[in-house]
């Protein structure tokens, strides 16, 4: 169980982790498709690069974002003693 005075630092840490995970991810999600046309003249694995990045690339980025968030947030929970009991 988390100690009372640990709550504030825990939440500050969690907030930063949230921003660190979401801000880069959301900016890529919004900005990358806008440049897809310009990237399409390049090729990767036979794909037009813009299409490849907007489809496969974003899936990969999303999965990596969630996976890294899960492990980092879990580390934060344990560091502050905020983790579940089991």
């Amino acid at each position: 169980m988390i100690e009372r005075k640990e709550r504030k630092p825990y939440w500050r840490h969690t907030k930063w982790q949230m921003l660190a995970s979401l801000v880069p991810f959301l900016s890529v999600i919004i900005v990358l498709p806008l440049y897809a046309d310009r990237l399409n003249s390049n090729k990767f694995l036979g794909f037009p690069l813009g299409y490849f990045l907007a489809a496969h690339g974003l899936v990969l980025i999303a999965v990596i974002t969630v996976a890294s968030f899960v492990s980092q947030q879990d580390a934060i929970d344990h560091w502050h003693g905020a983790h579940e009991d089991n």
Partner: protein
Amino acid sequence: MAFTTSTRMVNPRLGAYFGIFMSAFIALALVTLILEGLGTEAKTLRYGMLFVPLVLYAAIGIGSYTLDSLDFFAAGRRVPAFFNGLAIAIAAFGATGFVTLTGVFFIIGFDALCLAIGALAGFVVMAIMLAPFLRKFGAFTIPSYLGRRFDSRILRMISAILLSVPMVMVIAAELKLAAMAAVILSGAPEKQMILLLATAMLLSLVAGGMRSLTWTTVAQGLAALIAIVVPVAIVATMVTSMPLPQLTHGPVLRAIGRNEAIQGLPIILPPSLAFDIPGDGLQPMLKRFADAFGAVGPVAFVLSTLTMLAGIASAPWLLPRLAAAPGVYEARKSLGWATLLFGVAMLTSASIAVFMRDFIMDLVAVPGPAIVPSWLSDLVLRGFATITEKGTQFQATSFSFHRDSVLYSLPVAAQLPQMLLNLTVAGAVAAGLAAASASAVALGNVLAEDVVLGATWEPPQGATRSHAARGGLFVAIALGASVAAWVETDSLRLVLSALALTGSALFAVLVLSIWWKRINAYGAIAGLISGFSVAGLATTAGPGAWNPLDPALAGAFGIPVSALAAVAVALITPAPGRHLLELVRDIRVPGGEILYDREMRMQRLKKQRQRG
């Protein structure tokens, strides 16, 4: 209590059970293939492919029978991350994803990504901003969460009524798509199929509520993934000699691009707010596949991504699934699985569209007089496509396709055995049922818990509580089925509007309820009502003088209005009391008791103290 650790509660034989289910499903497909070779009547085989899976789902659902309310409303809080993630991904993707998204990819290519990316990002935002906290709270429905979080019965009632609207829309849309698929298998009228599937849904869900939902959805998700991936993997092996369509459609796509350029398919520069998502009905291929922004303008692309994101992240038919995770950590992890599986599903949809375009473009590339190959006449005969102009040579615009038939056209175009078409259609039925079921159970629980029993915080003890939810489930399915049967709308539009409404009404309020301590019940009510009404107005009024946006982008107005209203009203009304502040602090910490259980216990104690 040492004996309630999460890992011990998980059924260790789940993998074996679903291995058995998958073997049964694959065996069914293979048996029909053998019988097809032996010359059994095609109609019998199609009926088998429709009814046998329905019986399997119903058997799983009835086998998960329970009277315990924790089992009924949260699947006992012991669904492992992978299964939870699969269920949430398939409930979000649904038949809308497999059937219509494939068609949209086929017709407008790249621009369809705005819908898929938005939903994918929705999972990421859900995992980071909402899921862990909602799991910690542990309420069975979203209105219950809001009501307890803000200690306001009015908020609970208002949110229950408002959120019922998008949930009915989702049930109707998914049920309709599943019924359209079932019509291909049975040949019966659509209304009969809606009735059949609604009955099958009721049978497989009524026995165990969330518990039945979880295990039937996992079965349906596995069935749908096998059924959709196998045919396209076979086609990919034929075309590119690699059975990984998601990664190998690149060279095919480039060949298509060359043909499109030779054909002179226009490079369209649409207005930045254009949102030309193809509707129901026959349509030619509108633009070059890999080119961005031919049908959807750049601004509309971003806005629809954000609207989808908010809608999926706060969907009241997906979020209750988190209460079934064994813990906060598992809830986060299940969204990781959901993101991965959703991504695979969306890439599969895109690859199906690419391979289908390849078949058409190959026809166009052949010089000389137009010869209709047998598979094309088969497609026309089945009503999946038409040949609009028969000149001396085929043009890219000579063919029109039904948006919702592109998925089924691929096995026909590749001249695969009839079994694979039946399998694909069965997959679409499964996906549609999974999504409709998730929404039906969520709506049923909302109707029973928050509307009928919503006047009191103390739910009835024992089986009465789950019986009420069974009644709610029946009403929810009946509502959804009647909308599907009698309201003439396009399913994709229905789902997009439902997501726009949900995101506008709920997203800001849910996020603020966790990340901003100062918000109070008045702010939440203001945010809900203003967001919902702005999005509702934009949806019903359609694009007009004050609103240049397509209804599906209503979130662009709704979400900011809702957030502003929530913040402004919260600031001018009294700050929340000490109990609520303490509650928020507890929501933010993963460890400790599940708050919903604690609140319910405190309510009971309070009642007892009042009595004596």
